């Protein structure tokens, strides 16, 4: 296995990183901006970060989407903190797959999130209280329409590529059919056109855990009394779906944590139990429980075929014009390869330019976030070809 090695030499991972970045904010002050559910918000703030420089022709912009619990901090690091670099620092940076010496990379926190963009944990304008469960139900379409507003604000009319994994891949595909004339290429990773019953089921159990926490209180909770138990259980469930049988067997097996023998109690004893507990506890510090409910719902609701093709994936992608690179991972049981192959089939039937590779990996769904040489090299080669094509067509004009 080539994946999962520690790519960076120092412990913080900053050595090969893009460098310091700052979170920026943009507000949508459009009274006509209606969400898919029909509701309007007085104002929407979108947090975003950029990496690299926009070229003269504005032809090198790459829009990156984060997944369920990510944020705008895709690469680099914030000054005056000791935090590790952004969530896709192994892919985005100087000389990396998405080379910030060549491309201008943008990543925003989607609407409904809790990392700087307007979401259930935001304060209602002109009032003291938070939205909570009064926040309108948001969809992948809403996320993408907000990102389009951000592109307008940045005066970017063409995207060399749009890319993301998981829920990020859904946004990438949505971009390709919603704004086909803007998008030159799409790289959907470990994703699907619609959630399977399995994926919805796991999300529902996670939501149920939050809603069953007495502290949740129908979404009205204070900082002092948050539904941390429910949220951490939700995160634990999520983590199981991001791993695979094989990766859990290799990583944990039946190993015990700091013990030689079973203690015949109900404390966490197996390493896998401790791992999940730790992941759950770590998560509640940075994530809002209501946001988790809204975002998982948006992922469950997404159905590209229904929304754009009356149930036909071929019809849905008939609007697309971009070149595609679709990637799946062999041990991903949350969005298995057959779901990526369905995307590929629909693209082929529309005679769109599509490449597809199922990367052999035992790391499960998480594989798209971990260092993988093969993935990096494919993205790099693919982007270089698209960029070359764009530059050549500009010269011809």
């Amino acid at each position, binding site marked *: 296995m080539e994946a999962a090695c520690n790519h960076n030499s120092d412990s913080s991972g900053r050595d090969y990183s893009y460098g310091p970045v700052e979170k920026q904010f943009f507000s949508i002050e459009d009274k006509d901006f209606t969400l898919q559910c029909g509701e309007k918000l007085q104002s929407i703030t979108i947090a975003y970060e950029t990496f690299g420089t926009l070229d003269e022709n504005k032809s090198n912009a790459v829009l990156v989407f984060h997944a369920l619990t990510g944020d705008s901090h895709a690469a680099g690091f914030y000054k005056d903190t000791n935090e590790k670099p952004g969530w896709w620092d192994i892919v985005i940076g100087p000389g990396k797959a998405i080379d910030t010496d060549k491309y201008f990379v943008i990543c925003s926190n989607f609407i409904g999130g809790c990392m700087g963009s307007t979401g259930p944990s935001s304060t209602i304008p002109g009032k003291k209280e938070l939205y909570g469960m009064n926040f309108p139900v948001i969809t992948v379409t809403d996320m993408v329409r907000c990102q389009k507003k951000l592109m307008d604000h940045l005066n970017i009319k063409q995207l060399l590529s749009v890319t993301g994994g998981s829920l990020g891949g859904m946004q990438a595909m949505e971009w390709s059919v919603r704004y086909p004339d803007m998008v030159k290429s799409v790289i959907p990773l470990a994703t699907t056109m619609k959630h399977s019953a399995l994926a919805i089921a796991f999300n529902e159990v996670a939501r149920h855990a939050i809603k069953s926490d007495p502290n949740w209180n129908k979404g009205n909770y204070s900082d002092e009394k948050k539904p941390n138990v429910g949220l951490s259980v939700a995160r634990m469930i999520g983590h199981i779906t991001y791993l695979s049988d094989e990766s859990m067997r290799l990583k944990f097996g039946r190993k015990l944590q700091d013990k030689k023998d079973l203690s015949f109690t109900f404390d966490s004893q197996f390493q896998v139990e401790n791992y999940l507990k730790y992941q759950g506890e770590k998560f509640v510090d940075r994530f809002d429980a209501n946001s988790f409910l809204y975002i998982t719902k948006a992922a469950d609701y997404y159905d590209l075929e229904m929304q754009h093709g009356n149930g036909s994936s071929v019809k849905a992608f008939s609007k697309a014009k971009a070149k595609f690179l679709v990637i799946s991972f062999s041990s991903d049981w949350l969005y298995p390869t057959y779901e990526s192959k369905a995307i590929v089939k629909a693209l082929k039937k529309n005679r769109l330019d599509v490449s*597809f590779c199922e990367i052999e990996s035992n790391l499960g769904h998480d594989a798209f976030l971990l260092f993988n040489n093969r993935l990096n090299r494919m993205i*790099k080669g*693919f982007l270089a070809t698209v960029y070359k094509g764009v530059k050549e067509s500009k010269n011809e004009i």
Partner: protein
Amino acid sequence: MRFDLQIIASWIKPESIVLGLGCGEGELLYYLKNNKRIKETGIEIKDSKVALCIEKGLSVLQGDINSEIEDYADNSFDYCILSQTLQQVYNPESLIKEMLRVGKKVIVSFPNFAHYKIRSQLLLAGKAPVSRELPYQWYDTPNIRVLALEDFKIFSNKMGFEIHKKAAIKPGEKSSEGKIINFLPNLFATYGIYEIGK
């Protein structure tokens, strides 16, 4: 580039739309893209080879050629190429039919099993032949069927396709060199390359 691929490349018109089945690491498609400005699609089953193709900037899909080809509409491609893979195909008849459906022209190449060295191994040594072109033992070969240039001619009559062009060749010591065999090709050529059409 390999001699047999050079011959195939010489037959392809510039700016064609080309489907390469079992395209491997994409040597031929890469050459054609950069020298003849073709619009390429490759299909390859091995993930490591697919990744190498994509890295080079080729549009290549990982999958089984027999099922992947079904997604394309009639006459989607100017050329559909199956280079040195026919002997590994489970159902050549239906694959070639599919190739003739999606491609306006089809190019097929395969090792010639009637080459005199192969004949002599069977006749004189009395053993299953092993050659440079078919280097496997009977127990580990991926080549589940073997055929001679003559067989392909008979096959074309049976299936009713036309042979537009053919080249019987013998690569030299260096794989990039070789010669065309015009004298008794079924006996002296190690490979056959055919362009066929409906």
